């Protein structure tokens, strides 16, 4: 199916982003469920995660989610249409167009926040 080039990159990036998202999801659930130990614990943890280094991590995560999601739609198109596989490479570039379109607002908002020092206290 994949003969190197774009298809191979698409595949590796899909796996890598998928694994990354799963690791984040586990941390995220653990963090949010700290609410069960009350507002003090929960707020302390959330303040910890408001540090700039985690905000940068969040930018990476959002990139991962957007890529994984849009490339997933590409996979579905390849699975269920007659033409999807034939245009898999063009579709991959379409994925990046969508990616940039959706990623820019996050980059501006979160990136601006990091540079502007609006984090934590």
């Amino acid at each position, binding site marked *: *199916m994949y003969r190197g080039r774009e298809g191979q990159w698409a595949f590796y990036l899909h796996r890598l982003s998928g694994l990354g998202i799963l690791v984040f999801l586990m941390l995220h659930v653990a963090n949010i469920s700290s609410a069960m130990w009350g507002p003090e614990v929960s707020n302390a943890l959330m303040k910890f995660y408001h540090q700039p280094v985690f905000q940068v991590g969040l930018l990476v995560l959002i990139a991962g989610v957007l890529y994984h999601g849009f490339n997933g739609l590409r996979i579905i198109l390849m699975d269920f249409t007659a033409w999807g596989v034939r245009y898999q490479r063009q579709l991959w570039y379409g994925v990046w167009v969508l990616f940039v379109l959706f990623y820019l607002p996050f980059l501006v908002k979160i990136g601006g926040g990091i540079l502007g020092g609006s984090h934590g206290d």
Partner: protein
Amino acid sequence: MAIKSKRYAEARLEANTNLELYWWVFMRISGVVLVFLLIGHMWMNAILMDLNKIDYDYVAQRLSQTTWKIYDWLILALALLHGANGLRYVLDDWVRDPAKRFWTKVVAYGLIGFLFLLGSLSLFNHDFGVK
């Protein structure tokens, strides 16, 4: 073994078991749903809301509404299942030793099951006590 086909017709032929085919279909369906749920989730919390202002009260206020509880629980359930099955594909491909693969799966599934329980409890069993 995980299905490698990229077309539904081929996937059906390749599937050794019906269960494997159902997982293949589940990955597609949950994937589409998750794209919309997650873009909404990220947009709401990072663009409409200032990430750095998110605290216990904000979470409590959002989760005091049943709609958001269900929204978040759908993400939790679909993402953990989608992720668990994706991880299974990766482990089947990349962990060659059967014993190592088995125990890696035991640990991974255990952790994912535990987090599903933890997340569900905090969504439905915790009184956030909105002021």
